[in-house]
């Protein structure tokens, strides 16, 4: 078992013929993901690393039965591509692009709800079930299969933490990148729920950051969980009123502070690491 994706997941790559699409198709194939087809308008009939490309998602889906799609499509076209995937019946849609307009993100999420699809992102590094399937842009070599789930807002920071866990003999069931934008498909709670139900996951690492109240809301949910959760939060020394790279990472109107999140998580019995490389020890503590 794993969360959202596993060895059976058949992956479609939208925008496969572009630079990023080709590069990451290679990486995902190397990792062992089942990349069954690509879709790039006007490029039907081509192949990329031996994978057939179609003009439309519909055709690719009919021929190969893909059930997940990753979009290497520039932000202004992400909404159209995400709609195309969901309209073709793709159940998991991973939107990598940063700078997707906020109102497009709202429409994407509304359409996902109507179609019962799961959208990961926008502005995400994707997700990976180590040893089974990778749908994203994370480095291949840092993950190991194992019992820890990771849910993160930020890509590179989650690499740092996954690497720390792997080097300490703590492999992962699934690592999910929610995305750094204001409006994204999955909340911490959505992913925590899945990990709570996943038979293989024994403990969860929450990688959050300043801004918004998602960590506080997650803390409320964690109070009812049976599995232990530990956390690392970025932005402890960020100034107020400044957007720290991610659209959501801003302390404003008295909300979103580091202290508020730590307080809420501690109240839910979640230990918060002061340094990213303390996570492995915290996990070992709660798994005793």
């Amino acid at each position, binding site marked *: 078992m794993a969360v959202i994706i596993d060895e059976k997941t058949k992956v479609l790559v939208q925008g496969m013929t572009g630079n990023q699409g080709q590069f990451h198709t290679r990486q995902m194939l190397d990792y062992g993901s089942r990349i069954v087809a690509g879709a790039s308008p006007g490029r039907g009939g081509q192949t990329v690393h031996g994978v057939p490309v179609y003009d439309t998602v519909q055709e690719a889906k009919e021929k190969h039965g893909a059930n997940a799609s990753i979009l290497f499509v520039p932000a202004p076209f992400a909404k159209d591509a995400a709609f195309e995937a969901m309209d073709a019946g793709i159940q998991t849609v991973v939107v990598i692009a940063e700078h997707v307009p906020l109102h497009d993100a709202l429409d994407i999420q509304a359409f996902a709800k109507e179609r019962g699809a799961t959208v990961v992102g926008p502005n995400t590094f994707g997700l990976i079930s180590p040893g089974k399937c990778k749908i994203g842009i994370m480095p291949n070599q840092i993950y190991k299969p194992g019992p820890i789930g990771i849910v993160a807002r930020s890509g590179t920071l989650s690499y740092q933490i996954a690497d720390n866990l792997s080097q300490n003999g703590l492999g992962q069931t699934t690592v999910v990148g929610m995305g750094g934008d204001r409006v994204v498909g999955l909340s911490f709670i959505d992913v925590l729920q899945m990990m709570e139900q996943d038979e293989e996951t024994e403990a969860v690492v929450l990688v959050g950051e300043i801004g918004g109240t998602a960590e506080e809301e997650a803390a409320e949910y964690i109070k009812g969980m049976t599995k232990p959760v530990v956390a690392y939060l970025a932005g402890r020394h960020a100034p107020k009123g400044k957007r*720290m790279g991610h659209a959501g990472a801003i302390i404003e109107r008295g909300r979103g502070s580091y202290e508020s999140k730590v307080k809420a998580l501690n109240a839910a019995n979640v230990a918060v690491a002061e340094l990213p490389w303390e996570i492995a020890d915290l996990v070992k503590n709660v798994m005793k």
Partner: protein
Amino acid sequence: MKISVKLYEHMAKELFAKYGIPIPKGNVAMNADEVYKVAAEIGAPVAVKSQVLMGGRGKAGGIKFADDAEGAKKEAEALFGTELLGYTIDRLLVEEKLNIEKEFYLGITVDNQAKKPLLIASTEGGVNIEEVPEKHIVKMHIDPVWGLYPYHTRQLIARLGLSGAEAKGVADIALKLYKLFKDYDSELMEINPLVISGDRVIAADGRATIDDDAMYRHAELPKISESTELEQRIQALGLAYVELDGDIAVMANGAGITMATIDVLAQYGGKAMNFLDAGGGASVEPMAQAIGALVSTNPKAILVNIFGGITRCDDVANAIMTVKNQQGIPVPLVVRLVGTNEAEGVEILKQNGIDAFSSMEEAAKKAVELASAGEGQ
């Protein structure tokens, strides 16, 4: 980098007027003579309002009143060029002074968790909406697909306890404000206060924030940046940059790890000079320019912290070498380099006498050590 474009009050009001939302008589003025002209045209007592991108300007002395054009000009002369809430006043909005009977609040924003626009209204306007007790606030989610219908606004005025002409005015304005919010890719459209004056319902003050990621759909809107010159220079490269008040320059890849780098420096007793996220697969040239800009700010040390995913370590190494060869790096440089194309990147640096760290912990400690050593010089 994600930036929200805040519009000046007078620009927000121009949009309101375009969508049929009543605004006070008046116009923006860029100097005292223009203030005189606008006030003379109004021919009645006026408000002279400083145009800054910050709330709370009334309390800070940024809004003056005058009985006639001569008085308005005098107030304007005193305001122009002065600092208000961190901004230099370079424009004033001159408007008819309203006879205020009631002040309401009407705003539309996005509820991140619900993933829907949120309409917020209150009959206790004129103050920061965060200070209004929850029980006096009406909130309604709007379905982004179906939008706001007249029946929604009838529910709204019922919940606000309004009736008669003012209820009709509020309902009508709510519909128009949502259309504006949607058409202009807004993060916020706010009327505060929405003033009841006789039989008129008027947007006495307005704020509009546009999603920068959608600005390409609104070429007619002005580009207003609240960033400093250096921030703008680096942001123009497509990288996220925020100035901080320490002395260790930081470049990392990814918003989360860049924040974490700043935090880790602080844990070890150092202080970051900036937030620079060079992630998202930036190529050599913009990274080199960004590092060059960091060098030119004369930090005590520079820490480059890369965990390459979409960012390639050899690109980072080449960017560093470009800066070293073209402008020189006269301050201590600490590089941590792991991830995609790590071996290539480490080798490039090594050939040029730079030993890269693989541990973020050791690199951060080293940067703090070098920065504090530089302090004694």
